[in-house]
C-alpha cells in the first residue's frame, strides 16, 4: 500500500508545533517509514498539492485565510488541527474582545490599513476537522499517537477529563497548595500534566474539557486569593474562543 502523503500548513501562529514535529529526532525516521511528507516548509523546499493528510497549525484570522482552508479541505482526505491556535483559537483569540482597529494599529502602526483582520478563530470554525492535536506547543508523544491512530483507522484517544487526573497520577503537589493558580481542573488532559510536573501551573493551552464546571473553577480561583478580574483573565488566556461559543 502506498504511504499516505502528508502536508503541513500554517496560519496565524508561531510555527512552534511544526517545530515539535521537526524535532522528533529518532522517531522521525520511523514515522517516515509510514508516511511520505510532501510539504513542510520548516524542513524542506519541495511542495506538492497532492496530499492525503493535512496538518494545519495556526488560527484563521482573516477572510482570505478561509479560501485557503477550504482548498486544503477539498484536497485532503483528513484534516488535523495541530496546536492551540488551530484547535481552540489559542492566544490569538485574546484580541477578540478588543477593538480590532486598535489592535491593528498597535501591531502595524501606520500600515494598519494594509492588513486585513477579523476575530481569530480555530480551524473548525471554518472547515470540518477530523482530528486534533492539542497543546501550546503540541507534545511529540501526542502527535505520534494521533498519527498512529489515523494510520490504523482509529479515532484518536483524546481525554475528555481534566488535567487533574494526570496530576494526581503523577503525584504532584497541587499547584493551589503551592500558592499558585491553575486552570487544570477545567482543562482537557492529554499532556501528562507536563507543566505542573515541572513546578508551574496549567495555563489551559489544551482548551476546556467538553463539560467544564467553569463557575466552580472561578470560585476556587477566587477562594484561593485571585481577584474576580484575574480569575476572568485566567480563562481568557486560552479559553476565549471556547467561552464565547458556549
Amino acid at each position, binding site marked *: 500500500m502506498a504511504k499516505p502523503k502528508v502536508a503541513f500548513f500554517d496560519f496565524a501562529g508561531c510555527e512552534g508545533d511544526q517545530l515539535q514535529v521537526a524535532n522528533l529526532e529518532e522517531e522521525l525516521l*520511523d514515522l517516515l*517509514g509510514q508516511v511520505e511528507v510532501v510539504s513542510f516548509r520548516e524542513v524542506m523546499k519541495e511542495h506538492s498539492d497532492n496530499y492525503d493528510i493535512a496538518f494545519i497549525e495556526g488560527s484563521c484570522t482573516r477572510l482570505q485565510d478561509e479560501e485557503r482552508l477550504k482548498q486544503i479541505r477539498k484536497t485532503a482526505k483528513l484534516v488535523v488541527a495541530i496546536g492551540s491556535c488551530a484547535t481552540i483559537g489559542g492566544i490569538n483569540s485574546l484580541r477578540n474582545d478588543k477593538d480590532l482597529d486598535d489592535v491593528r494599529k498597535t501591531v502595524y502602526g501606520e500600515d494598519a490599513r494594509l492588513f486585513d483582520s477579523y476575530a481569530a478563530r480555530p480551524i473548525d470554525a471554518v472547515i470540518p476537522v477530523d482530528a486534533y492535536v492539542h497543546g501550546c506547543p503540541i507534545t511529540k508523544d501526542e502527535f505520534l499517537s494521533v498519527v*498512529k491512530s489515523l494510520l490504523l*483507522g482509529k479515532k484518536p484517544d483524546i481525554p475528555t477529563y*481534566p488535567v487533574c487526573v494526570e496530576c494526581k497520577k503523577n503525584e504532584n503537589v497541587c499547584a493551589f*497548595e503551592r500558592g499558585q493558580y491553575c486552570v487544570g481542573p477545567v482543562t482537557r488532559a492529554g499532556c501528562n500534566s507536563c507543566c505542573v510536573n515541572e513546578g508551574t501551573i496549567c495555563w489551559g493551552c489544551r482548551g476546556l474539557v467538553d463539560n*467544564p464546571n467553569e463557575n*466552580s473553577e472561578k470560585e476556587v480561583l477566587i477562594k484561593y486569593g485571585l481577584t474576580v478580574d484575574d480569575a476572568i483573565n485566567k480563562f481568557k488566556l486560552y479559553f476565549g474562543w471556547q467561552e464565547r461559543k458556549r
Partner: protein
Amino acid sequence: MRVISKEDFAEFVNALIKDKSLNVIGVKAKGDKFAFGPLESASELRLDYDVTLLPPKKYFFPQRETLVTYDVTTGFAVPKAEEVKPLVIIGVHPYDIVALLHMDEIFKETKSDPYYFEKRNASIIIGINIQNMSKYCFAPQMGCAVIDYGYDLMLTDLGNRYAINIGHAKGEELLNKYAKNVTTALARDIQLVGQKKREILNMSKQKFDFSPELIPELLSKTYEKSGFWEKHSEKCLACGSCVLVCPTCYCFDVKDSTDLSLERGERIRTWDGCLLEDFAKIASGENFRPTRPTRYRHRYFKKGKYLYDRFGFISCVGCGRCSSNCLPDIANPVKLFNDMYHETKSLGVEITPAAEPSVEIQTEGNIDYVPKLATIVKKVSMTANETLFEIKLDDGSELGHKPGQFVEVSVFGIGEAPISVSSSPTKKGTFELCVRKLGNVTTKLHTLKEGDKVGIRGPFGNGFDYEFLKGKDLLFVAGGLGIAPLRSLFNYVLDNREKYGRVILLYGCKEPRELLFSEEMLALAKRDDVEFKPTVNWCPENEVWTGNIGVITTLIPQVSFDPESTYAVVCGPPIMYKFVIHDLKDRNLPDDHIILSLERRMKCGVGKCGHCQINQIYVCKDGPVFNYSKIKGVPEAL
C-alpha cells in the same frame, strides 16, 4: 513486642537499602507534602508525616501497567516479566494497611488478578502508628487508625526508640536478618504503646454526628432524595481527584498503544475513576451516568453500600485524601454523611443499622487478560452497518459458551470490545458474532477479511438459564441488534425444539433494510413450530414490506400467550425495555417471567474495572442476563 533504638533502626533501614535484592520504599518529603518513594538512605524517611499524596497501592496496582503485548505476526502474550524484587514499604499508616486488605479482597474476588498479587505477595509492610494526623483524617471513626493485623511489622515512636509489633513471620525474619540490638519490650514500653494508640483515637478533627455503621442504611434512604445529590455536587469539577487519590479505588481503563511499526504494541491498564465524564459511556454514545450528581452519588454508594453489600466492609478507611484534594471542598465524606444524617432525621425517619450482609466471596484461579488468537473464517455482510463474523479459535478448542454470554474481541492495534455471541453452543467448531460498526474496535473489525486474525477472551457473563427454561413457552422480544444475543438462545431452542413449549419471536427494527438474519427469518416464517412476527418502525417508499409497521410493542397485543407458562426473553436498545416490560405486565406476565439481557461498558469482563456497574451489579459478571424481578428495584438498570 520488641524495641529498637532510633540509631539502630536507621542502621536496619540502611542495611535493607544496601541489599540490592530488595526494593526499599519509604515515606519522604515532597515539597510541603509527603509521598512514598524509593529510599536511598534512612535519613530520607519522614515517619512523622501526616498523610502521603498517593496511597501505597500504587506499588501493587500502578498508575500504568502493561497487561498484554501484541504483535500482528505472533499474537498476544504476557509481557516479558521484569524480575519482581521483594518490596519493603516502610512507614505505612494503619488506615492504608486496611485499604490494602480491602484491595486484596477486591482483586481476588471470583478470579485473582495476577498482576496485583505478583507484587503484593512479594511485599513486606512495615507500618507506623500515626504521629501527626491530617486535619481531614477520620480513620479513628472508621476503625482504621490503629490495627492489630495486616502488617509484617508495626512501629510506634517512643521518643528515642521504636516499639515494634511483629505481625507476620516475614517481618520477624527481616528483623533477625538486618537489625541489630533488638530487645524485648519492657512493661513500660508496652504500656506506652497502649497509651499512644489511645491518643491516636482522639486525634481526629473530623467528627461524625452518628455511628458510621449507619452509613449503608443512611445511603439507602437517600438514593432518590430530591435535590440532595444535586446540592452537594453543584461545585463538582468532575476532575476525579477524590477517586484517584483514594486508597480503596480500583477502577481502571484498558487501552492499546501501538508503536510506529503499527504492528506491535502494548495493552495498558491505567487508573480510571467513576467521577469522570465518560466512565459509563458505551460505543453507541449512550452514557449511563451522564451527569455530575449521578456520578458523585455513585462514588458514595460504591464505598458505603455496594461494596459493603458485596464484601461486608465500608470501603472507606478515613484517610481524608479525597477531602484534602478536592478544590471546591465538596468531597469530605464526614460533612456529606453528617448532612445526610441530619436531613434524614429531620424527616422523622428512623435509622437503624442495616442487617449484616451475607457475604459469599468465591475465588478460583487467575484472570487471564491475554486473548487467544482466532481467525475470521467467514464474514457475511448483513446490513450497511452490521456484519456476521464466524470465528474459529486457532488452538482448535471450542469457545464453550452458554447462550447469552459474551466475549471480548481484540483487534490488533485498536483495542478490545465486548460482543455477545450470536450462535448457539450446539454449533460446533466455530462461533458467530453479529457486530455493528460503532466504536473503534467494531469499525476496524469491519475492515478485516476472512483469514484475518483477532483475539478472543471469554466467554464471560452468566448467560441464559436454558435448562430452567425447558418445558416453558418462550416469547422472544428483540429490538434491532438485540437479536444478536437472543439468537444464541433461540437457535439453541430450535436445535432442541422438543424440549421447549411454544416459541414466539417478536422482532423489530427501524426499517426493512436494517433487518438482521433476513434469510433465517424467511425460513422461520415457513416453520409451523415457531410463531414469528417482525415489525419495522417505518418503511421508506422505495422498499417493500408486508409485515407489521410500528414499534416493537405494537406486536405484543398480536400474540396470545399463557402468562403462567410463558417466559419472555427481551433484548434491545436501552430505551426499549421500559415499554416492553410495561406491555408484558399489562398482559399479566409475572415479573419473574421476564428475562432481560442488558448492555453496558464491559471493559475487563471479569468484574474488576468498574465500567459496567449498574448500582451494585456488575453486568459482566452478575449479568448480562437478569431476571426482571431481581433488578426492577435497581434504579440504574432500566
